Each structure stands twice: as C-alpha cells, then as structure tokens.
C-alpha cells in the first residue's frame, strides 16, 4: 500500500469529504451527479442517506467506498487521502476496512452461506481455520447456523440479506456501506435487517452509512443526510464539516 498522504482530518472523524463533486460524461453534455459536498463521518456513527432518485445517493456511497473517484474535492479516510490512492491500494482498502451490503444481496451463487462469509475473510488474509470458525459464529449471530451449508438459491431473500450482513461485518471493518439493504424485502423482513444493522453498529462500534428510500429505515440512523440534485439539502449538525471542526 502507498504511504499515507496527508489529508485534513477532524478529530474523531472516520471520513472527511471536502468540496467533493462527481461529474459524468453524457452524450448530451456533462452531468453533475454530486457537487460541492462537505461532510464528516464520525467513527462508529450510523448515518442514513436519503433523497429522491438521481439525487446522488449511490454516487456518494461509491465515493465513500472507493469504488469511484471524485472529479473535484478531496476524500480522506482517517489520515489517508482516497482520491489519489492507486487502484490496487483502493482494492486493499476495501478488502480490509470496508463492508458492503447491497439491495440485491450480491452473494456468489455457487458458494454456500458460510463460504460466502468466508470469502470476505479469505480476501482479508484470515487463516483458513480461523475464518471458518468466524464465519460460522457470524452466521450464528444473524440466526442462520442451520443454513450455513445452503446455497443462496436455497435461502429466502431475508436470509440471503442476513448472509450479506454477516459477510459485511465478518472482517470487523471500520465502515459498512449499505445501499438500500431492505429494498427487496417485505416490511417485517426489512425490520429484522435494520435491527441487525443497528445491533452490529452498536455492539461492534462499526460505522454504518445506509442509503435508503424508506423513511422508516432512514429514522434508524443516529445521523442523517438528505441529498437533492447532487447537493446536501440537509444534514445532522454532527455531519457538517464546519460544525464538526468547531466542536
């Protein structure tokens, strides 16, 4: 991994975004998916991101996850500047420090539940015996011990999302990024998943950023951001960069 570059960091901030923008090229001209975003993500926070379609929620999540680079501004993860990090180091960053929970679960179809969880641990270079034990323990925490050897297609959607949750938290990341994790689930299953996310965040002190359309899901966040037209329309004071810095 490249030597950490100096990045401005507010005390207690896991991530800092300063004037971050993302512009896409389109046949009709450039499109600003995100513009002038200043945000601070505190360590261990549960942040929900809301906004209408096209407001830039998923783009923000992609930038936080190092899946894409900003076209303007700076993004720092603790002391490390993500926007200048080489591709291989970004992959390592995702491998070791981040967990992802997606709307469509994103499980490998030919791996069993426990193998899917193990995969994240294997990528994080956890040794074979420890990763099997850890994966089984995580599946126990999401109440799926009995389904550990089932393939995704043999599981219900709620169960698949619980496997995805177990996989996201397995390597004890610093940040879990969840993109509409309840979008494909009925209300009861959605509540179960949100309960689990909350519990994991609370017990493990892992920061969570969840993008959602659902007001009920958004209410679960201890801190909230509302996006509109690629800009921050509203944000909890603790997420605002000047306020955070002035604490």
């Amino acid at each position: 991994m490249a030597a950490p570059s100096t990045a401005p960091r507010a005390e207690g901030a896991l991530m800092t975004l300063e004037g971050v923008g993302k512009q896409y090229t389109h046949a009709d001209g450039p499109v600003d998916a995100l513009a002038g975003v200043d945000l601070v993500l505190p360590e261990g926070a549960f942040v929900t991101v809301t906004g209408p379609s096209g407001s830039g929620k998923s783009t923000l999540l992609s930038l936080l996850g190092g899946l894409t680079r900003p076209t303007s501004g700076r993004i720092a993860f603790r002391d490390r500047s993500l926007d200048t990090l080489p591709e291989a180091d970004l992959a390592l960053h995702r491998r070791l420090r981040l967990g992802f929970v997606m709307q469509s679960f994103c499980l490998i179809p030919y791996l069993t539940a426990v193998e899917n969880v193990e995969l994240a641990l294997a990528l994080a270079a956890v040794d074979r015996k420890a990763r099997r034990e850890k994966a089984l323990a995580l599946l126990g925490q999401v109440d799926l011990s009995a389904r550990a050897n089932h393939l995704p297609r043999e599981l219900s959607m709620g169960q698949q999302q619980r496997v995805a949750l177990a996989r996201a938290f397995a390597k004890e990341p610093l940040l879990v990024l969840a993109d509409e994790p309840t979008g494909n689930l009925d209300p009861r299953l959605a509540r179960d998943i949100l309960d689990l996310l909350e519990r994991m965040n609370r017990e493990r002190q892992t920061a969570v950023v969840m993008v959602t359309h659902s007001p009920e899901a958004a209410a679960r966040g201890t801190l909230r951001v509302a996006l509109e037209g690629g800009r921050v329309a509203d944000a909890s004071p603790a997420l605002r960069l000047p306020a955070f810095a002035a604490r």
Partner: protein
Amino acid sequence: MNLLGLVRRELSHRKGQAVSGLLAIVLGVAVIVALRSVTRVSEIAVATKLDNLGANILVLPQGTSVDDYRSADIDAPTLPEAYVERIVASTLPGVDNLSPKLTRRMEVGGQKLVVTGILPSNELASKPVWQLDGLSGGAGHTCSKDAGAYVNPRLKRKAVGSLAETACLVGAAAAARLKVEKGGVVDLLGTPLKVEAVLPETGTVDDDRVFVHLRAMQRLTSTKGQVSSIEIMGCCNAITDGLLGKLRNVLPDTKITTVQQIVATQIETNALVKKVSFAFLWVVLVVGGLSIGNSIWANVNQRRRELGILRLLGTPRGGIYGLLLGKAAILGVLGGFLGWVTGTIAGSTLGADITGLEVRPVASLLGTSLLVAVGTALLGAFLPAHLASRIEPQADLGET
C-alpha cells in the same frame, strides 16, 4: 475458500460450459497425439522394411556406374579390403553390418555366370531372405535402437556361421542352369566347389549368382586384398541423419550410393508428417485458443455481476486475472490429458491397422500435450481475463 477453491467451485457449477470449452482442445491434442503415435510406428515400419531389404548402402570404387543398385558391383574395378577396417574404426553410428564382396563374370560349369566372393557371416546377416533351413549361425542384430520396443520377428534372422573355401551357395536360377542341387559340385576355373545350398528364389540378380568365400574368390582371381564393393546395412534413421555424408568423409576416394527410392520415401514421409504435425499444431493453437477464449469470454459475460462482487469485496485486478487464467489452466490440464488419452487410443487403433505393429502409449507425448493444451488455453483466455480485470467493482450490481 481461496482462489483455487473458487475456480474449482465455479467449474463444478458450470460443468456444461467447461465441457464445451474443453472439446476443441481435447480433439486438437488428440489429433496431434494420434498423428505422432502413428508417425512413430510408420517410421519404425519403414525402418523395418529397409532393414528387411538387407544392405542399403553400397561402397564402390570411384567411377563405377550405379544405374542398377543390385548389379553395380559386377565387373567393377576394385578397392582395398582395408577400407572395411577403416569404416569399422570410424565407429559411425548407424552402421550395422559390413559386407565386402568381390564380383566377377566367370564361366562356371560351362555357363557364364556372376560369381561373388563373400565373407559368409557378414553377407548373410544382411540378407534375411536367405534364412535357410539348415544354415547355421547366430541371430543378427536389429537395426533401430528403439526396435526393442517394437518386437518384430522378421528382424530375428540367422547368419551362416561358416562357408568353407571349397564350398559355394548357388542362386535358384543359376542352380537350374547348372543343373545342380545341394551336395553337388560345380567347377570354377578348374577348382571343384561343393554346393552347400541352393538359395531360394529372390527375384533379384542374386538368383543368377554363385556365392563363394571371399578368400577363395580373391585367390582364384588373383586379387588378394581387393574387393569390388562393400555393402553396408545402415540404420534407416541414421541414413536420413546424414550417414552417407559421414561415410564419404571416411572414404573420400570411393563412390557411395544407397537405395535412393526407399531413403527418399522415408525422408519425404518424415518431412510430410512433420509438416502435417506442425499444421495440426497450429490448428490446435488457433482453434483451441479461440475455443477456450470464446468459452472464457462467455464465462466473463455471464459472470460480470459475480466479478463485480469480487471487485467490490476488494479482489485486485491481479486476482481476477488469476481466477480466469487459473480456470483456463485447469481446463488446459484436463484437455491435454484427455486429448493424450483419446489420441493414444486412436493412434493405437489406427497404427495397428496401418502398420500391423503394436503401438504403445508414448508417455513423452503426455508432457507435450499438457504443455500445448495449457499454453493454448492461457493464450486464449488472456484477452477475456484482461477485459474482466477492467470490470468496475459496482458493475451490474443493479443498485439504485
């Protein structure tokens, strides 16, 4: 669950796709293996034929006409018998038997015949057709160094251990003209010679010849230490590898010739088979590579979402390369092995039909098969793997 485990599970998950990707490479390798197996047998078969023909290289004095290989030595000028020793001393590989001869047209029993003086054990060892009941002697040696692996009873011939200087062998036609049989006596320049045997008909000039001991012939014709030709039984492969040139270096003042048609055929056959083998090698490389490449490309398209997930989880681009090239390598190993097995079976069957000789599996071709198959598979998979490594982490995840 590591990279290899992931490849193994994916292969097992999409067996049909793996099998279709394998087919071209299996068939391609099988064709090469079958061809090489048959070629080996064919080479042995030609070598056997040449061997059965007997001597195939003729050393004559410089200036001798060689219009007819089998009668070139008749009335030829002489050359020193010491040349035989010179060839022996050169220890050239591929010289299996030397047969010095002195041949002259003479009157025998009132008939004009060709009389050839021979050193019996050397001469008869090179003429398997002379395997007569009652002729004593040891087994002749075989030609090819590989011949032990292709046991051919026709190569186990006998040589006459001795032919007395007062005896002779008479060709079938000559015996008829002289009206003699085994045990009879013929007169050669006033010297009576006992007929040791009447040789079976060969359809060659040998039928009209009378064979006597070389020493007797030299004495009768006052040509002590001289011979008119030296017949050499050269190994077929050694001939194609330039034995004639090497012999010419040893005996620069002689004319050295061979049974051109047979050697030429052998050379042409070898060259043709080599060309065909190379052509098939290219076919395998192109078709096999395209097939595996196409299969991996289809696999990449089918797995875009899965590869996106792996990238999302932090798999580096090198890991994606490893995943797809690892799969190609496994397919290559499987294809190479199955191709070798299929080709060996086909080659054995065809080889037996074509040559009548037993073809055994050629273990050394297994290594080549694996090398070609894995190399081809990796080449074919490289471009799809490269493109797959460019898949973005969030590709096709279908999110908001």
